């Protein structure tokens, strides 16, 4: 295995809606920022990988527009995933492992504000025979999951409010956060439900932002960063498409991805200082902390997705935030988690460390 590290991370502020910039316009400053932090010129980048989804943009091959911000002339080597850009990160890591080059740039674009009504769009990700025709409300499956978790005695509405209160307080220090502030648990619990037992603040606020992570191998990484965030392991697993055949109170695919990553990394969830979890809803923090064995980690110090959720960039931002903890010398071992699909169907786990091996 090659030693591969994150050497820089940048993101644009999460906003409810950006009506000024097209995809290229709001990606370009973020690419500039990440490339400048790494101290490289873009012609030194061997590979580009990105993640976004046409269903948020309303056009086929919408991401092609973003290549204008990459500088695709002369022609470059690039790839795109139609899902969260954390999976593009995985592809770039594998590409570097194969020895195809030394520097890769990964970007994610979240444009959750473009669909006028997410209830028109999100059912399209569901099973087309049994679920999509029912047109469940965008939070319906998460509501079922949260209710099952409460019924199993694994959490309470008070604990959900505590997760939100802690996340939004942490987000005050994050200039990219869309939501932040000091909210008491009592204040949060007085809010109305959107999909009982979930309240509006239990839901990650969908919006717009772009994120960029630069990866480099071996001595190149050592040259580009003082404290590279070495990717010690990355793994992803997926569960069945039909939520009715899963135990929604468990994230078995997250558990397996975490166990496999721990095997590769030589350390596990209970060894990390900091974890960034892709929680689309507050109750998912408990499910993921259980699945990944996060007994001692500080969770979502950035505020996490409950403070800003540019869908399809949100997972990559978790990797960027967990890497930044190491790049800035604030943590020694970190875990990043990303998810895709309804109710934690697909899960990716990335373990990073100040040490390459």
């Amino acid at each position: 295995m090659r030693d591969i590290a994150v050497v820089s991370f940048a993101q644009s502020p999460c906003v409810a809606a950006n009506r000024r910039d097209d995809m290229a316009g709001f990606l370009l400053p973020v690419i500039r920022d990440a490339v400048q932090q790494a101290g490289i010129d873009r012609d030194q980048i061997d590979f580009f990988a990105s993640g976004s989804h046409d269903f948020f943009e309303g056009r086929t091959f919408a991401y092609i527009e973003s290549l204008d911000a990459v500088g695709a002339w002369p022609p470059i080597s690039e790839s795109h995933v139609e899902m969260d850009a954390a999976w593009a990160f995985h592809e770039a890591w594998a590409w570097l492992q194969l020895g195809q080059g030394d520097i890769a740039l990964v970007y994610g674009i979240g444009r959750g504000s473009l669909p006028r009504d997410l209830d028109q769009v999100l059912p399209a990700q569901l099973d087309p025979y049994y679920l999509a025709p029912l047109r469940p409300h965008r939070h319906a499956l998460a509501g079922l999951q949260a209710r099952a978790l409460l019924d199993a005695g694994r959490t309470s509405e008070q604990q959900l409010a505590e997760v939100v209160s802690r996340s939004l307080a942490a987000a005050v220090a994050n200039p990219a956060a869309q939501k932040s502030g000091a909210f008491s648990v009592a204040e949060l619990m007085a809010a109305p439900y959107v999909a009982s037992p979930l309240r509006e603040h239990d839901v990650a606020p969908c919006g717009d932002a772009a994120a960029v992570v630069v990866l480099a191998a071996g001595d190149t990484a050592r040259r580009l960063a003082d404290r590279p965030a070495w990717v010690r392991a990355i793994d992803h697993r997926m569960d069945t498409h039909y939520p009715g055949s899963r135990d929604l109170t468990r994230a078995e695919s997250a558990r397996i991805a975490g166990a496999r990553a721990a095997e590769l990394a030589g350390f596990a969830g209970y060894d990390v200082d900091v974890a960034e979890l892709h929680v689309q809803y507050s109750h998912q923090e408990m499910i993921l902390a259980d699945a990944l064995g996060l007994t001692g980690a500080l969770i979502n110090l950035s505020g996490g997705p409950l403070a800003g959720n540019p869908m399809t960039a949100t997972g990559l931002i978790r990797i960027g935030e967990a890497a930044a903890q190491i790049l800035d010398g604030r943590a020694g071992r970190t875990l990043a988690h990303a998810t895709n699909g309804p109710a934690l169907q697909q899960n990716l786990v990335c373990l990073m460390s100040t040490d390459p091996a």
Partner: protein
Amino acid sequence: MSAEPGPPLPQPITSVKSPFRMDYTYVAGAGRSVFLRGLAERKLLARRCPGCSQVYLPPPEFCSRCLTELEAPFELDGRGTIATFCVVSFPFPGQTIEAPYVVAHIHHHGADTRLMHLIGDVAPDEVRIGMEVEPVWVGEDQLTTSMTSIRHYRPTGVAIGSESTRA
């Protein structure tokens, strides 16, 4: 010898109705907005890259080769030459113009990129690469921030020579 026939298949379900309707907001972006607003005023606005001097029509916000913001927009007179064209001869669903008709890449005088539009007021078999054309704008009441503000391009009657002979 023939294989043992299996149990009969159930009558297959051949369709399930699940019509999706999705409404989107389209964000034109800063660069496109400049160009589209120009069209509503019968103006073709181009922009030059300060890095490589390429003149874009239509112009994005920044040069996709240099990643540099383009300079201030300036107006072109609209005339240009046909860089390449094709004759659309077949009907298809959603077609708004009656076939046959001509679609062309137009190389505007003073621009380095090509703009795609229709060629009209001329028989398709008389269209040539290198032919000079000019825009035919719609009436005042139909002008809008859209390519449809130009009905089509028509020959000016001046032959300039083929694309390959241009510098």
